[in-house]
């Protein structure tokens, strides 16, 4: 009975908010707010806010719209170490927003169980670098629950949020990008937003999606990325990539904080007469192969960039899939500009990172192949 109501409730909430397909403000470069390229549908006005505020707003909306949703994790009660959960405990109470002890495996296992009882469990892992004790729970429990029970049970209401990525001085254990590990697991979704307005919509979609989602938030952008974010409840579709810059000479694919670096490279390349098309993948699995394929069919060249080390990174999957689909169209090998194959270093971070110049070099050599 409860599960029927739950399903009905979710359909209702999906039905009453509209999906925005690429009708949001254009991707902003890191420090200033964006100018919309197309008029937004007539909704409530937006407000300028940063990434953690947008995520905070999404969580407020999620908890408000669904009384069976919960937010928990280490230190979330006072607002969290990145302030993403500010005000939630005060507003919704300690039985819905609560701190957990320091035990990632326990947190995720607990979240899976809660979700299996048809609740929306939003678990926070304080830094993506700490997600590994929970890796077994995610891979072996969350991803396979629906499959192995023949559809009787599922933990679709599970969303795991974790800040990921370089922050300038994080060192080995506060900078990792572990998305590739999770992209290798059928049964879960991996979503990574690039900006505040994207984050709000994608997080709401992830929470309401009927599959378990791992949601990585680019911590570098928590304060740095500021833009107009609509104040109402809206969702952005998962598994749909977005072309955020149109071009004709080469396709660049990325996600999260890396996109702003890639955009800088595109702007510089433009000055040299190279027209770059930039795609935000948004959902890494299941990923939108069609959009990327269509773009590469147009340009004939592909460059993928991510902070995670190059070997075995998600760029390898994109490269392999696109080569399969676009082999005869490709004018040059697929280029990957990624982190180096070393542990994320401390003092050497500037050398390790796939920065603008490395991307620019790669664009040039791909175009001149």
């Amino acid at each position: 009975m409860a599960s029927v109501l739950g399903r009905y409730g979710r359909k209702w909430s999906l039905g009453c908010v509209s999906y925005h397909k690429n009708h949001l403000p254009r991707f902003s470069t890191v420090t200033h707010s964006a100018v919309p390229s197309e008029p937004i549908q007539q909704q409530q006005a937006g407000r300028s806010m940063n990434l953690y505020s947008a995520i905070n707003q999404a969580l407020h909306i999620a908890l408000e719209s669904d009384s069976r949703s919960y937010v928990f994790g280490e230190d979330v009660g006072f607002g969290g170490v990145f302030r993403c959960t500010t005000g939630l405990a005060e507003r919704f109470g300690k039985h819905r927003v609560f701190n957990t002890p320091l035990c990632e495996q326990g947190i995720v296992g607990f979240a899976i169980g809660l979700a299996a009882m048809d609740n929306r469990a939003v678990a926070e892992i304080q830094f993506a670098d700490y997600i590994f004790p929970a890796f077994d729970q995610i891979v072996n429990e969350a991803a396979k629950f629906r499959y192995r029970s023949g559809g009787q049970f599922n933990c679709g209401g599970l969303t795991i949020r974790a800040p990921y990525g370089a922050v300038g001085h994080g060192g080995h254990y506060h900078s990792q990008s572990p998305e590739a590990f999770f992209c290798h697991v059928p049964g879960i979704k991996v979503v990574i937003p690039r900006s505040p307005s994207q984050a709000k919509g994608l997080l709401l979609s992830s929470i309401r999606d009927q599959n378990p989602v791992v949601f990585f938030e680019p911590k570098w952008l928590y304060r740095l990325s500021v833009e107009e974010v609509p104040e109402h409840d809206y969702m952005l579709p998962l598994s749909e990539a977005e072309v955020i810059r149109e071009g004709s000479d080469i396709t660049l694919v990325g996600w999260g904080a890396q996109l702003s670096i890639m955009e800088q490279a595109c702007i510089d390349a433009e000055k040299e007469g190279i027209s770059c098309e930039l795609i935000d993948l948004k959902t890494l699995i299941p990923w939108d192969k069609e959009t990327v394929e269509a773009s590469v069919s147009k340009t004939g060249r592909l460059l993928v960039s991510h902070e995670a080390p190059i070997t075995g990174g998600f760029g390898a999957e994109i490269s392999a899939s696109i080569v399969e689909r676009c082999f005869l169209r490709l004018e040059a090998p697929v280029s990957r500009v990624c982190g180096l194959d070393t542990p994320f270093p401390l003092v050497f971070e500037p050398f390790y990172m796939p920065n603008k110049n490395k991307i620019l070099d790669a664009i040039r050599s791909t175009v001149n192949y």
Partner: protein
Amino acid sequence: MALSHLSSTRSNRLLRPLAAAASSLCRPISTSTEPLVIETSIPFTPHKCEPPSRSVETNPQELLTFFRDMATMRRMEIAADSLYKAKLIRGFCHLYDGQEAVCVGMEASINKKDCIITAYRDHCTFLGRGGTLLEIFSELMGRQGGCSKGKGGSMHFYKKESGFYGGHGIVGAQVPLGCGLAFAQKYNKDENVTFALYGDGAANQGQLFEALNISALWDLPIILVCENNHYGMGTAEWRAAKSPSYYKRGDYVPGLKVDGMDVLAVKQACKFAKEHVLKNGPIILEMDTYRYHGHSMSDPGSTYRTRDEISGVRQERDPIERVRKLVLGHDLATEKELKDIEKEIRKEVDEAIAKAKVSPMPEPSELFTNVYVKGFGTEVFHS
């Protein structure tokens, strides 16, 4: 000796002027190794074992060494605080001031063949294991001369030749590693033990219980030391743990609760523990200690505890002050002599910092070394 029981400050102050006048004229700092027996401030609380005696054997030289070592550690941590604020140290920096008695007391009861493995609050533990101030400041500032060649940073200090296995960023991960170290020691029959340190936050990690079971099952010579400073980052112990009696959490593994601010109690407990584990398998030591700084340099440390609490501990239980009182009370040195030691330490620390500041950064090629055993394994990026 009349003053063998630690008396209150007031009575010491009354006795002092008389003794001082006579003694400061002709007595140098005592370096005698004549035994002195001192009682710990509070008794030990046992769990499934017989506690050791409260009477600790020490001597003037040892007490003065305690004073010097702890004062060096204190000065070093405060200097690291300033360096961090000056942005010479970057990344994360977790300071140990207040907890000095734990590593100093531990060192007094063991040797360098025993292994110590700890979490990320490791600057003082490293110093206790024989590290130098220069190595410490160099590593903190990411220089070549650092103990981990500048590649580890604050959280990853190591010293192989002294059995210091570091220096770990992931909470609780070092404890099962400690079991492995202990197993190797037992296998080699070398009568050495491992001290695996963790905090009250880490005590709730699943891997800790796995480590307890493994070490008890196989009778490993491991001492699990919970440095309970009562706050896991900003979370008070009673908010995170159903049972904050960490020394009892081993259930079938015996435990001992120790006043971690009393260096002599720590020394006694570690000595007892080492003897115990070589015969009977693992034991848990809970060190009741306190950190004055916040969890790390990004944490002011005052949003989850009152300033009164912090200053209260500083006044009542500071480990260095305790030893100072002991030394003065037993007339092993004068106040001036102790102050001179502190001045000397300050100078040493400043010199080490100055040297470290001008020392070179690691070569860029170091980015690729030590990933695997030899040569690359890494792709040098090219388009």
